C-alpha cells in the first residue's frame, strides 16, 4: 500500500483519479491544485507516489517536479500529460519523473503505473 498525492488544477481530474484509486490498496493522502501547494504538501505529507499534472496556474508541474526532486531525489513522480505536451514530458523525464500517463487514461493504466512504483 502506498500513500499517493494527486496534483491537478482541475477538481474533476482529482476526483477522477481518486475514484480510480478507491478500489486499489493505495491511499490518497493529499491533493494539491497547483505546483506551489504540491511542494508544500509534499514536505508535510511525504507521499510515496505523486501524480503531477503539467499545466497548472501559479506553479506548473515541471517546476514542482524539480522542487520536489531537490527535496527528495528518489521521489516517485508520475506526470499526467496530454498529447501535445511532448517537450514538457521530455523535460520532466530528464528531471527525474519516473514516468508519465497520457490523458485520457483508463483505470487499469493509472493503477498499473502506481502499482509499479509502489
Amino acid at each position, binding site marked *: 500500500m502506498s500513500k499517493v498525492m494527486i496534483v491537478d488544477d482541475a477538481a474533476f481530474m482529482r476526483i477522477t483519479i481518486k475514484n480510480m484509486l478507491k478500489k486499489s490498496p493505495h491511499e490518497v493522502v493529499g491533493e494539491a491544485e497547483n505546483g506551489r501547494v504540491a511542494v508544500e504538501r509534499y514536505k508535510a505529507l511525504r507521499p510515496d507516489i505523486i501524480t503531477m499534472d503539467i499545466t497548472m496556474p501559479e506553479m506548473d508541474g515541471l517546476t514542482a517536479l524539480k522542487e520536489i526532486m531537490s527535496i527528495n531525489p528518489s521521489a516517485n513522480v508520475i506526470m499526467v500529460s496530454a498529447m501535445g505536451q511532448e517537450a514538457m514530458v521530455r523535460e520532466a523525464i530528464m528531471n527525474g519523473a519516473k514516468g508519465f500517463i497520457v490523458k485520457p487514461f483508463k483505470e487499469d*493504466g493509472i493503477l498499473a*503505473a502506481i502499482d509499479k512504483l509502489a
Partner: protein
Amino acid sequence: MNVDESMLEVYIYETQQLLESLEDTLLRGENEKRLDSDDINEVFRVMHTIKGASAMMEFENMSKLAHSLEDMFSFIREFGAPQSEWPNIFDLVFAAVAFFNNEVAKLQSKAPMDGDASGIFERIAVQLERLKNAPSEDVPSKANESAQVKGAGNIAPETPRSDAPCYKIKVVFQENSQMENLRAFGVVQSLKNVSLCTATVPADLNAENAAQEIVRNGCLIFIQTNENPDRIKEIVEGTLFLKSYSVVPIEIDDEEVPETMRRKKDNGHDESAQSKASNGQTSDNTIVETVSKQNFISVNVNKLDTLLNIVGEIVTAQSMVINNADFGDAPHDSFDSAAQQLHALINELQDIVMNIRMIPVSTLFQKMRRLVRDMAKKFDKDIDLELIGEETEVDKNVIDYLSDPLLHIIRNSVDHGIEDRETRKKAGKPPRGKITLEAHTTGSDVIVTISDDGKGLQRDKILKKAHEKGLISKTDEEMTDKEVFSLIFLPGFSTKDEVTEFSGRGVGMDVVRKNISLIGGSISLESEPGKGTTHIIRIPLTLTIIDGMKFNVGAMNFIVPTVSVRSAIQPDLNSIFKDPDGNEMVLLQENCYPLLRLNQFFNVEGGVTELSEGMIMLITSEEKDFCIFFDHLDGEYQVVVKSLPSYLKHCSSSLDGIGGCAILGDGSINLIIDVNSL
C-alpha cells in the same frame, strides 16, 4: 470509464466555472481588441483542462474542439497574432464557448450531447492556417525556448570508455500507452547513470515518426556499461507501461550496433556538454495567477436553501415557545432572560445564513456584456456597456429573479432604445451608444439601474397605443409623464409579437414587473425624449424572511408584509360610504381610501361580511394607498417566504394579490399578500 454522479457533477461545475471565467477574460480582452500574454495563457490552460476532462469522460466533440483551440492558442502563445486577426479569433472562441456551454447544459439536463462542432472546427483550422501564414509578430517567443528543450531531449551518447561490455536492450510498450518515443527516452534516461555510452534505434527519439516506429518494432537501446546485467534489468523493468523487454550482451563491433556508437568509440568525442548545460535550465512555463482561491469552497445551493428553511423554522418555533400561552401572565424572569439570549443567537445565526447566500452581481452583469455584444453585432450598432458596482452583493435568489428582467430591459434598450449610427450622428450624439448597468445598496434594498442614451420613450406613441388597447380612462392632458410611462407595465400593452433570437418568449414589460414584484421589488422608469431611458429596479437585499401581520378571511390565512401596513382598526361604520360609482370608500384621518373586501376578491366562502364584525387595514402600495377588509387579525410573525408551486396557477382563476406562501410553526399554510397586485 466508470462515471459516478459526483464526477459528473464536478465535471459540469468545473467546466462551467472555467467557461465563465474564460468569458470574462474574453470580454475584457475584446475591449482592448486583443489578449495579453497572461490571457492567452489562460485560454490555453482552460482549453487544456477541458480537453483533458472531456477526454476522460469520453465526450469526444468537447475534447476535440478544446484540443483544436488549445493548438491555436499554443501557436498564438509562441508566435503572436496580427492585430487584424483578433476579431476573428474572438468570434471563434466565443462560438466555441457557446458550443461548450450548450453541450454542458444538455449534459446537465441529461439530454444527449448531440451538438455538431464541425463548423467551428473548420473555422479554427482555417484561422490557424491564416495565422501561420501571417507575417510573424515580434513576440518574445517561446520558440527558442522549446527548441532548446528539444535539443536537450536528444540523447547525447557518452564517450565510450575502454572495453566495457555492451548490451542490446529491446523494449516494447503496452498498446495505446502513447508517446512511446518518450517512454523509450525515459528508459535511456534511467540507464544514463549506469551507462557509459548509449545509442538507440530509431536513432532520433524526437523524430516525428519515432513513436510509430517504436509501436511497430519496439525500441532498441544499446549501452556500454560495467554494471551488472541484473541491475540493468531491474532498471528497465521499472519502466511504466512496459509490455516486454530483453537484455542481451552484444559486441560493440557488431553490425547491429548503430554506427554512431561505434564511431564514438573511435574518436571519443564528447558532444554531450552542451546538452547537459541546458538540462539544468528550466523552461519558463510558469503561469502566474494572481488570485488565490483556496479559501473558498463551493456549496450546492440546495443545501443553503435547506439551511435557510431550517433557520426559518427555528425563528417560528422560537416565537411559539416564547409566546406560549401555557406560561400565563405569571412573571418568569429567568425564562425571559434565557429567551432573550436565544433570540440574540438566533438572530445572529439568521444573519450569517443570509450572508452566506450573498453573492456579487458581477456574474449576472457579465452575462449582460455578452448579450449586448451579440445583439449589437446583430443589429449593427456600436454599443458600449458600462458596469458599475459589480461587487454589490445580493441574495442568490435575488440574482435568479433579476436575471430575466435585466435581459428583457437590456434587449429593449439595444433593440429600440439606442438608435443606429446615422440617426445618432444626425441628432448630434456620439455614434457609439452607451448602456450603463449599475448596482448599489441602500440599507435594506439593492437598486439596479439600467440607463441608455438612446431616443427615449415617446409619450405620444405610448398614449396612442394605450388608447388603441383601451388601457386609459383619463384624458391625455391629465396624465403626467410618469403616469404615461408606467402604462407600458400594464398587461396587454406590449405589442412585440415577433419572437426573435433575443427576445425569446416575447414577454412584455408587464411580466418584468410581475417578476420583480413577486420578490417584493418594484420597477419604475424615467425617460427624456432624445436623451435616453433609465429603468430603476428596487429589490429587498434578502427576500426570504419577512416580518408580516397574520390575519384570516374565512378559513384562509394570510400574511401581509408589515412594511406595507400603515394601520389596522375596527371600522367605524360612519366613515364608510359609497362613491357615485358604487365603490366602497373609507374615510380615515381626513383622507378617502377605496375599500377592498378580501372575501370577494379571493372568492372565499364563510368569511365575515358584516363590516362591524371584521377589521380593516390601511395598506400602502407602490401606486396607491387603500384599505382591505378581513375577518380577524392574528398578530405579527417572522416568516420564511416560499414560492407558490407553479401548478397552482392551473388551480385558480386568478392568483393576483398572492406573492408566495409561508408555513408557520403549527404547520399551517399562510398565503403572503402581494400588495402591488391587489
